[in-house]
C-alpha cells in the first residue's frame, strides 16, 4: 500500500508537471512567427481569428434557429459516425447505454436528434471512401488520417470548410474552444485561403514509443539497466550469448531485440538518440515530409546501427518477412512466450489489458519474476535523453460537403466536449464502470454486458478528446495522477511509474510545433507510395551485409527522391524561406 501511495504521488507529480509544462509551452500559432524583419510576407492566417467572447445576440440566435439556451427551436436531425470495433462481447456501438444516453442528452440540450452511422474502426478510410462516392458520409465524421485521406477528399470538394462557422460563431461553441483552443480548431487552416477542413481532437498522452527490457534477465546476468547505446548493445550481446542460461531448451528461440517490418515505428527511441541536440525547427519542417524526418542524416545512422545489430544476430532474423497484413500476433506471441529481451511499445504496452497483457501472459509462461521495465538508453550528443514528439493531436473531425446542418453538427461536438459529458462517458457509471476512492481517485472496473465500453474510456464517443493511455480528464492533475496509478491492476506499480517517468516526462520531451504553413502540393497523392518505399529501404538496408549498407541505403533514398520526395523537400524549403527566411527557429 505504501508503494502504491508513493507511486500515486509520483504520478500525480508527473501529471501536474505535464500540465504545467503544457500551459507554459510556446504556442506557435497563437504567438505567431516572429518573421525576419524585411520584406518577408507575414501570412495573415498564422494568427487565427479571435474567439468571440460576447454572448450571441438575439438576431444571431434567431438567424440560426436557436433560443438563448442554444437549443434549436425546431428539432434538427444529423447523422454521426461511430467506430465499430466488433469487439468480442461488446455492444452495438449505435445502440447501447452510452450511445442512447448521448442521444437523449443532446436532444434535451440542443433539440438535435442524432442517428449513428457505423464506420469500421480498422476499415475506416475504405468505408468513408464508399460513403463519399455515394454522397452518404455522416454529417459528423472522424478519422485519424488527415494528410492522405482527408486531404484527398477535401481536394475533391468532399469536405466542408469550417472556417466561416468557427470564426463567426465561436461563442456558440464555448466548450470546443475551451478544450481545443484556436490552435487546434485552426490546426489545418490554409495560410492563404483560411480554409479549415478538419480539426483534431486532443490526445492526453504523448505519442511516444518506449523501450522495454527484461528486468529479470538483467538481474540473472548481473547487468544494470543500460543508459547508453553501447550499454544497450552490450545487454543485447549478453542476452544472445547467454541464451541457454536464459531460455534453456528454447535457446534457439532467443530474440535479443524484437524488430518488426514497421521499422519507422520501432526505431524511434534509437532515432531520437541520433538527432543532434541542436536540431532546429527548420530541420524539423524541411525534413518533415515523411516520418520521422526521413531526409535528416540521423535516419541513415540509426538504420546503420540496426544493420550492425542485425548482422550481429541481435535482431529478430525474420522481421522483414511480414507485412501489416501477415504479421498478425507473431511478434506479440514471441514476447508473451518470454523469448524477447527488448521490445519497443507504447507507454503502457507491456502492462495494458490486465491479465492479457504482455507482462501477465509472459509471467504465465515463464514465472512470476519475468518482467519488462522501461529504459531510456539512447541519449543524444549532449548526453541527454530528448524525445521528439508530435503535438498531442488526435483524430481529425470533419463535416462532409453534404452536411446541411453544420451548426447543429458543431453544437453536437460542443455538447460532447462538455466536461461533465466527456467525464461521464470516460468513467461511466459509479459502481459499475468505476469506483471512487477516498482520495478522489477513480478506479475503473472491467464492466461487462450492457455497460461495457467498446473503446477504451469510450474514446469513440468522446471524439474531441482521447484519454487512452492516460488518466480520466477530471480537471484536477493530482486526482488524475492518482487515478492513473490505479489503471493497471495486477501490475507492480513500480513498472508503471518507471514507464511514465521514461515516456511521459515533459523534462525529456521536445514537442514539434505546428508550423501552420499549409499543405505541400508535392506531397499530395504520393505519401503512401513514399512510405512504402521508405519501409522497404529500411528493411533492405538493415538486412544488407555491412559492406553493402551505404549502397543499399543510398539507392533507396535516390528512388525515394525521384519518386516525389525531392519535390516535396524543395517545396518545404521554399515555403520555410517565404515565411521564416533564414531563421532556424520560429521564435528567432
Amino acid at each position: 500500500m505504501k508503494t502504491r501511495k508513493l507511486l500515486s504521488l509520483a504520478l500525480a507529480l508527473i501529471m501536474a508537471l505535464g500540465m504545467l509544462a503544457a500551459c507554459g509551452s510556446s504556442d506557435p500559432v497563437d504567438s505567431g512567427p516572429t518573421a525576419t524583419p524585411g520584406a518577408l510576407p507575414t501570412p495573415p492566417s498564422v494568427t487565427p481569428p479571435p474567439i468571440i467572447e460576447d454572448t450571441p445576440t438575439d438576431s444571431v440566435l434567431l438567424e440560426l434557429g436557436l433560443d438563448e439556451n442554444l437549443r434549436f427551436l425546431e428539432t434538427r436531425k444529423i447523422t454521426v459516425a461511430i467506430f465499430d470495433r466488433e469487439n468480442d462481447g461488446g455492444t452495438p456501438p449505435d445502440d447501447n447505454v452510452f450511445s442512447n444516453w448521448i442521444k437523449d442528452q443532446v436532444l434535451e440540450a440542443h433539440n438535435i436528434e442524432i442517428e449513428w452511422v457505423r464506420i469500421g474502426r480498422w476499415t475506416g478510410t475504405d468505408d468513408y471512401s464508399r460513403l463519399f462516392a455515394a454522397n452518404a458520409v455522416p454529417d459528423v465524421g472522424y478519422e485519424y488520417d488527415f494528410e492522405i485521406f482527408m486531404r484527398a477528399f477535401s481536394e475533391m470538394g468532399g469536405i466542408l470548410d469550417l472556417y466561416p462557422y468557427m470564426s463567426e460563431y465561436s461563442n456558440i461553441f464555448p466548450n470546443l474552444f475551451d478544450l481545443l483552443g484556436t490552435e487546434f480548431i485552426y490546426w489545418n487552416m490554409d495560410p492563404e485561403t483560411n480554409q479549415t477542413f478538419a480539426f483534431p481532437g486532443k490526445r492526453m498522452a504523448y505519442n511516444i514509443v518506449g523501450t522495454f527490457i527484461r528486468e529479470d534477465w538483467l538481474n540473472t546476468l548481473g547487468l544494470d539497466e543500460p543508459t547508453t547505446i553501447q550499454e544497450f548493445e552490450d545487454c543485447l550481446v549478453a542476452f544472445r550469448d547467454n541464451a541457454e542460461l536464459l531460455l534453456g531448451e528454447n535457446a534457439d528461440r532467443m530474440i535479443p531485440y524484437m524488430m518488426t517490418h514497421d521499422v519507422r515505428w520501432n526505431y524511434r527511441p534509437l532515432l531520437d538518440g541520433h538527432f543532434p541536440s541542436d536540431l532546429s525547427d527548420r530541420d524539423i519542417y524541411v525534413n518533415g515530409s515523411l516520418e520521422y524526418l526521413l531526409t535528416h542524416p540521423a535516419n541513415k545512422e540509426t538504420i546503420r546501427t540496426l544493420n550492425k545489430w542485425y548482422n550481429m544476430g541481435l535482431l529478430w532474423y525474420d522481421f522483414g518477412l511480414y507485412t501489416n497484413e501477415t504479421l498478425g500476433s507473431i511478434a506479440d506471441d514471441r514476447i508473451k512466450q518470454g523469448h524477447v529481451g527488448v521490445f519497443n511499445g507504447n507507454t503502457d504496452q507491456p502492462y495494458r489489458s490486465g491479465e492479457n497483457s504482455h507482462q501477465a501472459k509472459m509471467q504465465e509462461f515463464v514465472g512470476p519474476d519475468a518482467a519488462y521495465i522501461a529504459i531510456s538508453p539512447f541519449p543524444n550528443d549532449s548526453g541527454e535523453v530528448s524525445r521528439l514528439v508530435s503535438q498531442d493531436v488526435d483524430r481529425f473531425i470533419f463535416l462532409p460537403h453534404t452536411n446541411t446542418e453544420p451548426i447543429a453538427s458543431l453544437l453536437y461536438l460542443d455538447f460532447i466536449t462538455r466536461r461533465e459529458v466527456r467525464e461521464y462517458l470516460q468513467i461511466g457509471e459509479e459502481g459499475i464502470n468505476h469506483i471512487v476512492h477516498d482520495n478522489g481517485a477513480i478506479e475503473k472496473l472491467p464492466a461487462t454486458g450492457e455497460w461495457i465500453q467498446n473503446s477504451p474510456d469510450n474514446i469513440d464517443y468522446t471524439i474531441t478528446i482521447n484519454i487512452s493511455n492516460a488518466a480520466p480528464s477530471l480537471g484536477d492533475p493530482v486526482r488524475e495522477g492518482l487515478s492513473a496509478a490505479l489503471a493497471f491492476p495486477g501490475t507492480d506499480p513500480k513498472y508503471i511509474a518507471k514507464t511514465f517517468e521514461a515516456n511521459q516526462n515533459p523534462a525529456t520531451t521536445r514537442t514539434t510545433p505546428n508550423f501552420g504553413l499549409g499543405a505541400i502540393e508535392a506531397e499530395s497523392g504520393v505519401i503512401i507510395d513514399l512510405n512504402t518505399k521508405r519501409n522497404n529501404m529500411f528493411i533492405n538496408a538493415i538486412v544488407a551485409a555491412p559492406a553493402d549498407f551505404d549502397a543499399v541505403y543510398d539507392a533507396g533514398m535516390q528512388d525515394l527522391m525521384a519518386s516525389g520526395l525531392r519535390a516535396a523537400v524543395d517545396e518545404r524549403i521554399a515555403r520555410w524561406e517565404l515565411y521564416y527566411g533564414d531563421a532556424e527557429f520560429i521564435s528567432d
Partner: protein
Amino acid sequence: MSSGVLTKRQQNRLDKGVSGTSKWTLVKRYWVLYVMLILPMAYFVIFRYLPMEYLAMAFKENNIIKPLWEVPWVGLKNFERAFGDRDFWNALRNTFMLNILDIGFGFPAPIILAIILNELVFKRFKRVTQTIAYMPHFLSWVIIYGLAMRLFAPTDGLVNILMNRAGYESISFFDKPNNWVATYVFLGIWQSVGWNTIIYLAAITNINPELYEAAAVDGAGRLRRIWHITLPGIKPTIVVLLILTMGGLIGGGFERPWVLRNPMVYDVATVLPVYVYTKGLLNYQFSLTTAVGMFQSVVGLFFVLGANFFARKVGERGLW
C-alpha cells in the same frame, strides 16, 4: 454425328430455319430456354457492361464525389502520369515476368499430370491422387501463405529446421528476390495444378478408345500413344486454354502476389493489380488507376486476339 456436336451443314440448316421452321417458330418452341437466358444476360449487362461507363474516369479529373459527367475532362493526362511513373513500369515488368513464368512452368504441369493420371492402371489410386491434387484449389491464398511460412520460414520453417539438422544452411525461400519468384511460381502450380488437370482429363476421356486399341495392335508403345493420340486429342483444349491464359498475361490475380509478397522483395513482387490497389484505393488516385486498369484490359484483349489469330493461322479453331 454421335458426339452431339452439330456439323456445319446442320448448323446452317438450323440458322436458316429449313424444313419450314422459321427462327421465330424456334424461339416459340424453345422459349423456356430463352427465358432462362435472361438472368445471366442481365448479370452481364448490369455487372459487366453498365459499369464500363466509369471507364470515362480514366480521362477525367480525380474525383469520385461529383457525378461522373460533371467531372472535368483531362484528356490523356492520367495515362501520361501512369507512363511517367517508374513504379508503373516496374509493376508492368514484374507482371509480365511472373505471368510468363507461370505460363512457362504452370501451363504444362496440369497437362503432364493429366496424362500421368490417365495412364494409371489402378483407378482407385488415380481417383485419390486426383482428389488430393485438386484440394489446394479450394484453399485461399491467405491459408496457403500461412502453410508456406510454417514450412519455408528462414528460422522456424520445418524445411529449414530439417536442413539445419542435416547440416545444411537455411534457404531464404521468401527473402531473396530470385528465391521468392521460384517459391511464388511453385506455390501457384501447387495450388492450381490439380484443378486444371480435371479439364484435361475430361478432354482425354472424349478421345475414342478405339484409337488406342488400334495403335496398340499396330505395336505403338505407351509413349507413342501419348504422343500421337492423347496429345493431339486434347490439343484443341490446350489451345483454347492457352489463348484464355494469354489474356491474363498483363493482369492476373491480386490475392496471390499481395499475400505472398513481403517488404524484402517488393521490387519483384509488386505487380499491376497491386499497383492499382495501392495507388487507387490506398492513395485515392482513382482516375490514375482507372487509366492503368484500362491499359491492362486493352493490352490483354490484344493478347487474346493475337493468340487467337495465331491459333487459327496454324490450323486450330481458336475461340471462334
